[in-house]
């Protein structure tokens, strides 16, 4: 799969790896923008668990609120303490 993607990336001169992968951006410990996630496993005001590739992206914080929710794109707002990956069970 990765080889096909690599071939396509070379052919089109577009980094498909980066496009197809998930990506998260943290701004000032108060805003997190995650793109390329699959689904929301769990959501509460203290933590949000997102399914990304074969892992889980866990965002811990306080007063977490979803500012924008779209297919493959989520913007979380609140006090962010931790962002870490864990293996999907």
């Amino acid at each position, binding site marked *: 799969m990765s080889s096909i993607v690599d071939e396509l990336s070379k052919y089109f001169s577009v980094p498909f790896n980066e496009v197809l992968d998930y990506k998260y951006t943290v701004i000032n410990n108060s805003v997190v923008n995650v793109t390329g996630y699959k*689904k*929301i*496993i*769990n*959501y*509460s*005001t203290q933590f949000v668990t997102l399914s990304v590739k074969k892992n889980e992206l866990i965002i811990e914080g306080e007063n977490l*609120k*979803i*500012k*924008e*929710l*779209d*297919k493959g794109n*989520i913007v979380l707002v609140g006090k962010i303490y931790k962002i870490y990956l864990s293996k999907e069970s």
Partner: protein
Amino acid sequence: MFRNVYRVKIKGLNLDRLINYIMQNYKSYNLKRIAYDELEVELGYKSYNNLLLKIDTSCYNITVEKTFGIKFFLNKLKQSIALIISTSICLSFVCYLNTRLLKINIYGAKESTIQEIYKVLNQNNIKTFKSNKIELGNLEQDILQNVSEISLVSAVIKGNVLIINVKEKLPDVKIDYADFVAPYNLIIEDIECYQGTLLKNKGNLVKAGETIIGAYTINANGEKTSVKPIYKLDATTYFSGQVEFNEIETKLERTGKKIVNSCYNIFNCDFLKINKSNKFALYDEETKEVKLFNNLFLPLTVKKQIYYELKEVKIEHNFEEEKELYLQKSKQCAMEKLPQGLVVSNTIQEVIDGGSTKLIQTYLEVKIKLTND
């Protein structure tokens, strides 16, 4: 404001599944988990309606918390007809006022001219609350033609006010062609005429009102031309006063006897009338009206008619003793006739003897100088 959004509260179990469903199908904003079974989310107008069709309402309880957007505002407006009507009335009234004249200001003219200008405006049907579409050029022409005392006009409309600026004509310079007329009876001592026609000469006695210099000249061809008289006049005039002296003077004196008639009056009704007949041959009459209660509301008045008996008393005067007094009285009488600003140069007094009656006369001689050079 222009985005039509529902803020919705969803109650139910397994909300994470619902969030994933929303994430897959719609765009949502400000999603907040209030409790494990309660969620608050903002959805677009179409997304919300689609969600209502797709969602199982028996599992989830959906309540609309708030609505935003122009669509909802218009829907609310539809419900309040009174507000729409009043707003439209206000708007139409404002639009109507914009096409009307609210005030007419006229500057630079006196009251009589302003009245004439208003007449012209009325003729052109220009009044307050009439249309403000006016041909200003025509109006200016009309005012110039119809109002005689105006030399310049400018008319401007600023907003709802018609401003008319006016420049009045300068007053015509009137040349005084009046004859020079004697102000008093006078004797001409000296006269010099620089312009005009001399009608009286030195030494002439002129009565008040007679023309001394005519306001014209006659040239060699006999043509009459009006001119302003220019002259220098020295004259003498006299002002007289006289007093009569009688050696025996008859005076009337009250004897002390009197008859009093009285009558009380309230609200124009007379009562308690005392009416005695007057028996005196010579009498003096006096009437009085006295309010009895000055500070009260009761208008009770007393009318009194008093007849005083008089008798004749003869007083003998000695002229030599009272001569000075009568001379002074005579002078005073003459002085009263003297116009202000004239100075007396000589005083002549004489006594004309007529037996028991004497006439004391005073003449005030006044030198006057008149010129308009």
